[in-house]
């Protein structure tokens, strides 16, 4: 029909194992590669969290089972207890893994890859080979980071923020600041490249490859969120990449970009090869990337929640335009708020004032999104499926994570709560309470589309319930710890008079965290079990509108037999456009009601 369709040609699917599963250029396979790799790191990062929580509940007590097996290895001492430097390595690697090797790969690598071509009605991303390359840069990055557990003195120990001079001065400053830190930097550098290539790919795909009739205002919000995220990735990640190169240069080439003169470690003489640099330089560069990264961590989650809420509330999104505007608003402001991480750093208070104002303002678009989700639920007809329970939890918990951010934005209040458990509570409410719940919602929602089978609903419900309870029991009390002044990243608070009375709460948090960790096993079993044994799924089990539901489950190699033509927005539920067979109206169903592909 259209010129666009004539230009489209369908490749034959690959037949050998290597081209099918290893060097695949199929966006759906690459999405699964990201997903399974991220699952591995999720398990690893989660285990690290469990060890962290053990140490905080029972400081320097031998860790049952694991501790006795791993005596004198990794972070453990000869009794099987966590070593003090081991604790620093645990928090460093937990943060690094969860942010860079779990959340971003799942949101962008897995969901972005799987959904963007389907949502724009294309047969693949714009640059399939580049796409494969992105994954094959990401995987070695993960391997290198993982390898750092096995090197002399262990992995990096300077926090996921890797502040110099601690990260810069080598083993003399802290164990793990040698080889471990170098590997950390190399891994982040490779990951950065993977991220930039991925971002460019997604931008091009969304801009150039939308199906006929798919105007910008008919794009699903999850794809809009991926679009804005890709802009963040393309513009902010190069800055992180250069920061890692600069720090590597300090460590390996003897420059002193982040090191002022006159630094003394153990000896009487100053450390050689310092001078001329400034430690705050790193913080500015790092946060110029890493604040946008916080939005890379949440925007796709917001998109997923939007799609799920509209689908299961059987109602269009309240204020679609405002939802898009707020995404763009977050992007604009997201580039000028990084200094809120540096209020106590010694940066000029006047600059702090400016960053406080921009940070307060960035709460507004997030607030608008919350209000619009609530507006969507109003007068709706809610189906409590497992994906919807996760999406509703996302809203409930994101509200808490968003509101606690206001305390940190307020500079005088931040004086007290900066670098305490208040921030730990805040970002776990955003990244776990928000993003991970959206991820669970998205995985249970699109699972039929990915694997052609359904996940077990009963166990899905049990997993949701235990995760919701365990999460809140573990993380809500951290607000109180923070309010009491409990510093983050200390291996035990019991050295301090003002924190001693909080130790029973630390125990409570740890046991809640163990429950939360154990509940994730249910998810993994359900996920992998259903892949092989789940009930075969129909094409559109959720009666959803977007284009991926118009094609078969699992999605065939070429995605669509014919490139679809789009007639309406993604959320036309319960409208007059629904043709009487139900309350949904697929985006590609012609308006005269002749075809209703999803009902076949």
């Amino acid at each position, binding site marked *: 029909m259209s010129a666009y369709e004539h230009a489209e040609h369908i490749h034959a699917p690959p037949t050998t194992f290597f081209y099918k599963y290893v060097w695949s250029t199929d966006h759906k396979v690459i999405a699964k590669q990201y997903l399974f790799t991220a699952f591995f790191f999720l398990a690893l990062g989660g285990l690290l969290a469990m060890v962290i929580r053990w140490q905080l509940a029972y400081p320097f007590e031998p860790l049952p089972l694991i501790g006795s097996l791993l005596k004198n290895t990794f972070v453990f001492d000869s009794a099987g207890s966590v070593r003090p430097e081991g604790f620093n390595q645990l928090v460093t690697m937990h943060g690094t893994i969860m942010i860079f090797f779990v959340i971003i790969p799942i949101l962008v690598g897995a969901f972005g890859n799987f959904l963007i071509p389907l949502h724009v009605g294309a047969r693949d991303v714009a640059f399939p080979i580049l796409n494969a390359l992105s994954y094959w840069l990401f995987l070695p990055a993960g391997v290198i980071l993982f390898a750092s557990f096995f090197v002399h003195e262990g992995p990096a120990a300077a926090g996921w923020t890797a502040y110099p001079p601690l990260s810069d001065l080598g083993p003399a400053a802290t164990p793990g600041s040698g080889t471990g830190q170098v590997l950390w930097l190399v891994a982040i550098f490779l990951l950065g490249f993977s991220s930039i290539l991925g971002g460019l790919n997604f931008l091009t795909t969304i801009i150039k490859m939308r199906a006929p009739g798919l105007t910008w205002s008919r794009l699903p919000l999850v794809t809009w969120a991926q679009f804005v995220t890709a802009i963040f990735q393309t513009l902010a990640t190069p800055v992180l990449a250069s920061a890692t190169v600069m720090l590597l240069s300090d460590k390996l080439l003897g420059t002193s970009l982040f090191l002022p003169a006159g630094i003394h470690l153990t000896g009487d003489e100053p450390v050689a090869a310092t001078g001329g640099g400034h*430690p705050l330089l790193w913080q500015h560069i790092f946060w110029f990337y890493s604040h946008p990264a916080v939005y890379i961590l949440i925007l796709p989650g917001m998109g997923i929640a939007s799609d799920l809420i509209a689908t299961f509330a059987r109602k269009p999104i309240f204020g679609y335009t405002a939802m898009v505007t707020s995404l763009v608003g977050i992007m604009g402001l997201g580039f000028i708020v990084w200094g809120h991480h540096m209020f106590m750093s010694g940066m000029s208070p006047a600059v702090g004032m400016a960053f406080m104002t921009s940070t307060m303002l960035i709460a507004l678009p997030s607030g608008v999104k919350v209000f619009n989700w609530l507006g969507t639920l109003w007068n709706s007809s809610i189906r409590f499926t497992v994906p919807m329970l996760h999406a509703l939890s996302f809203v409930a918990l994101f509200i808490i994570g968003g509101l606690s951010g206001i305390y940190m934005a307020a500079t005088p209040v931040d004086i007290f709560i900066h670098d305490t458990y208040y921030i730990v509570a805040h970002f776990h409410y955003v990244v776990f309470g928000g993003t991970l719940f959206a991820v669970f919602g998205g995985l249970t929602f699109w699972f039929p589309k990915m694997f052609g089978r359904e996940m077990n609903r009963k166990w899905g419900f049990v997993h949701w319930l235990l995760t919701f309870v365990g999460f809140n029991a573990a993380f809500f009390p951290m607000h109180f710890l923070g309010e009491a002044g409990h510093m983050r990243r200390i291996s035990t608070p019991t050295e301090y008079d003002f924190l001693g009375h909080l130790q029973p709460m630390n125990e409570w948090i740890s046991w809640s965290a163990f429950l939360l960790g154990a509940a994730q096993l249910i998810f993994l079993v359900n996920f992998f079990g259903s892949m092989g044994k789940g009930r075969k799924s129909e094409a559109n089990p959720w009666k959803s509108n977007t284009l991926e539901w118009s094609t078969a489950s699992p999605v065939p190699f070429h995605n669509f037999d014919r490139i679809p033509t789009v007639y309406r927005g993604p959320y036309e539920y319960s409208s007059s456009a629904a043709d009487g067979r139900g309350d949904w109206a697929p985006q590609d169903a012609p308006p005269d009601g002749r075809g209703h592909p999803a009902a076949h």
Partner: protein
Amino acid sequence: MKKPGCRALAAAAAAGVFLTGCTDMGWLPPNLNGAYGDTVDELYYKIMVVVAVTFFLTEGLLIYSIVRFRAASGRRAIYSHGSKKTELLWSIVPGFILLWLALVQKDAWFHIKSEFPKESEAVAVQVMPEQFAWNFRYPGADGAFGTEDDLLELNNLHVPVGKNVVTRMSSKDVIHSFFIPLLRVKQDVLPGMMTRAWFRADKIAVWNLKTHKIEYLTLADFDARKVAFPASTDRAGFVGPRYGVRNAATGVFIPNDQPGGKRKNGARDIDYEPPRDKEGGTAVGKKIPIAHRGKIEDRPWEEAEYVHHPLDLACAELCGLQHYRMRGMVWVEPEYLFRNWLEERERSRAQYLEEYGESPFLAAPKWQKVWDGIHAEYNGAFR
């Protein structure tokens, strides 16, 4: 929105603020900073009111919608793309509230972080953290840093009650953060540059020997009590604080290093030991210096009602291996005890000079280089 819904939400918000008030107020530690501590806490609570109202409104609305609009057979969602008016309302109102929140922080922020008291009218201290200790340097009689009469002290920061204290801070190695929770002070300390902080402690921490609890006394209350204070260089005194487990019922205290003196979760109690004689036995009835009514008097240990207790100073920036125990002690004390302490330090310095022919400060010229060789602004006369 329907009226009953409205009323329910208002009730939820009110109940929410009340509940938040009940559960939340207790967690902030005591606030002894008379210069701006209350301002920080007030701003905290101001935000909490806004947050609590928003929290209970939105979560209330969410729960209400989930219950009210759950799918029931035959009921269809009402098709709507939203309402521009509502959206405008809930964008503009929160927008102004957020801007207002930013603006109310402004004065306090600049007051705390850039309006430093004059050093000549305050107590000025240099702070130089290192892995993993706090070095403090007092300027001595000449009112200038980096001169021969400077006084060095490790991990113990003495400050007079009710007087402004100004710090000049720079790190010897990596980034540390100067955090005194009970004074609401936090400031990162970096190598290669100077940062400053200031505060005024208006109350004195003491250990109640009867109730085994920390109390915070005004100067007048302190003067009315008999307070023992820890041993310093040339005076006999008691040992402490020491840590262990106190049996809540019997009051028996077992120190850390004895069997039963440790809990599995690490929580520990504090105790002060009576003074000991040279052989290590308890010197019951031995006289020790006790502060009372503005004077130091030698009295028997049994007469003491309180023991002078330090505030925690913590490092809030991950700084390496022993970061978690980079603890300093801040002794807030009446002016006369502060002077007394300074004189004692001066005396011990003179003694050292006599014995070794050089001041302890000059005895380590390399150490001096660390303090003085970094940047000019760090040393020099009062500003």
